[in-house]
């Protein structure tokens, strides 16, 4: 672009044209790069391995995406970097444990109970903490440190009640399902299916429902949304219902395929942040796509490096995106 305006007579070289196209269509570029990487991986490691790891990646990716969509909406709408979001996941997982194991009821009830209680927690905190702090005009660091304090309170209340002992939900951990030569645990399959159904439904809700449109309007520009007649405080409450409810669901899903411990959600928080940043902060679709992409990249990385290093991949992706394209793959260039 710059080269073109400086010397309009010169034809841009093909390299320049590609770079410009990449800047214009970052999402398409990202998908194209990903496709090239996948083809290269299939060529070097074989279709079966790539597909099998990819399937695992979709499972974790669905959890990241569900966590990320709530975090990004809260961030976009309330300008709150919610460090307690990971502990919402933990809260949901333990709420499911309460119903599923302690009270011995089916997991379906546990999932709904976890989503409902986490959503109530979200609304409660909005009413007693975030709302009042916003109306006092609290600064970014003030809210950030408050969220960190809240994260500690939630996490260690959970530890106080349930201790650090590893706990398991009452799910089938041995059965596997085979198709096309790929193997997936029955529970993992259920998690992937629930995750994707929820993600697609969320995408449609944001795209077509009035509430979804209002949420995106608030995320874009809160003041403008307010002056155009949207009841912002209502939308904010609904945002918390979705953000916390999905966090609760993601927590149950993570708990179902691994084990419960008080750090469960906090350990997922940075990959979730990575998904948010990859998708562009405040961009809900971006967070959904970013979560899936991150899950895939992390699992595929184990084809080349030892699995013990895979957690670090999430941070490397996060740092690289922040350096190269801080507005995210799907974000528009704004003041970063």
């Amino acid at each position, binding site marked *: 672009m710059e080269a073109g305006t400086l010397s309009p007579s010169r034809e841009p070289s093909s390299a320049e044209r590609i770079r410009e196209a990449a800047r214009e269509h970052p999402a398409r570029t990202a998908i194209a790069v990903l496709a090239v990487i996948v083809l290269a991986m299939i060529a070097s490691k074989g279709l079966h391995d790539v597909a099998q790891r990819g399937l695992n990646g979709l499972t974790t990716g669905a959890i990241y995406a569900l966590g990320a969509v709530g975090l990004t909406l809260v961030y976009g709408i309330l300008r709150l970097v919610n460090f307690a979001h990971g502990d919402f996941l933990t809260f949901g997982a333990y709420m499911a444990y309460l119903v599923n194991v302690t009270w011995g009821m089916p997991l379906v009830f546990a999932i709904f109970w976890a989503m409902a209680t986490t959503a109530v927690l979200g609304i409660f905190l909005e009413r007693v903490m975030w709302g009042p*702090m916003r109306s006092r005009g609290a*600064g970014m660091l003030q809210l950030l440190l408050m969220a*960190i*304090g*809240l994260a500690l309170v939630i996490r260690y209340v959970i530890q106080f009640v349930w*201790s650090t002992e590893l706990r398991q939900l009452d799910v089938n951990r041995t059965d596997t399902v085979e198709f096309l030569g790929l193997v997936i645990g029955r529970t993992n399959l259920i998690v992937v299916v629930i995750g994707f159904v929820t993600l697609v439904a969320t995408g449609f809700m944001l795209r077509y429902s009035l509430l979804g449109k209002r949420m995106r309007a608030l995320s874009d520009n809160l003041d403008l949304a307010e002056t155009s007649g949207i009841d912002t405080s209502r939308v904010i409450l609904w945002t918390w219902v979705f953000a916390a409810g999905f966090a609760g669901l993601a927590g149950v899903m993570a708990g179902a395929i691994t084990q419960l411990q008080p750090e469960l959600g906090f350990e997922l928080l940075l990959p979730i942040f990575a998904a948010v940043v990859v998708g562009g902060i405040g961009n809900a679709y971006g967070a959904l796509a970013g979560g899936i992409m991150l899950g895939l990249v992390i699992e595929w990385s184990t084809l080349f490096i030892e699995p013990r290093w895979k957690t670090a991949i999430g941070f490397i992706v996060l740092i690289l995106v922040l350096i190269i394209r801080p507005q995210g793959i799907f974000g528009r260039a704004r003041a970063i």
Partner: protein
Amino acid sequence: MLEALTSPPVAVTLESFTDVAFWTGVGIIAGTYTIFALGLQLNVGFTGIFNFGQAAFMAIGAYAMAILTTETAISFWLSLPLAVLIAIAFGLVVGLPSLRLRTDYLAIATIAAAEAIRLFALNARELTGGGQGTFGFSDDWDSISETIEGWIRDLGWADVPTLFPLLIVVWTVAVLLMYVLSRIQDTPWGRVLRAIREDEDAARALGKNAFSYKLQSLAIAAALGAISGFFLALNLKFVVPDEFLPIVTFIGYAVLILGGLASYWGVAVGSVILWTVLEGLRFLELPLSESRIAALRFILLGLVLIGLMAFRPQGLFGKREEMVLGD
């Protein structure tokens, strides 16, 4: 240090309230966190950069010192300045790309960088000893410690705690650093930092290279983090990745806010208050298991952060006119 937080209470009787060895340990932790949080004060309180990766600088200081001393021919004393230089280099590597970012992105970038360092320490077993950690680096310090202990005994205190010399040294260094930093803050350099904190564009309009100043601020914070890492390592006599969890940085922020922003001496006050309260909880005779008491201390820490942010964001001793959180 986290060990101290999660380990079972030593005693819950009133007589341990006057236990000198116990309070010596608390004093060392408070001194270590003072130095740690001085770096945060320089960054947050005086420059306006939200560094959430301070634990990584502490880790690099501790690991570099331990590894250089045990794995190479370099002496313990030479390893200290080298470790500081390595931490500064890492600070520059982190700062160069991330200091251009908006403040909220910077917070996420620095905490991610810190976690990357911790995971590296956990997984690069050949270099760091992995989860088991590194030890056997403290011989030179131990002999000095014994000499100081001998002097104190000669003064007539027969049962001086073994760690008492470390307490003296950590607070001597902390006070020295507080003095130097306070003096630097009154120089033109220090005033530019404050100008950047108040209005970066205005500082730039006056011809100051804001980015370079912010980078210098982060580099000094890295050096301070590394120094606090030395004292952590000498206190524990080993270095393990679990000592550098993000919560270490969060405790540093609690110390910072408690003492008040834009005050170096406040950091020491904040650190002493916080650690006295956290460790003093052991003397409450609660009918609870040890792990629950440990959880209770972190709940308290969280409530302190929330309460301060809600009701006194400038901290207990901060100056309201210098408050930077409400912006």
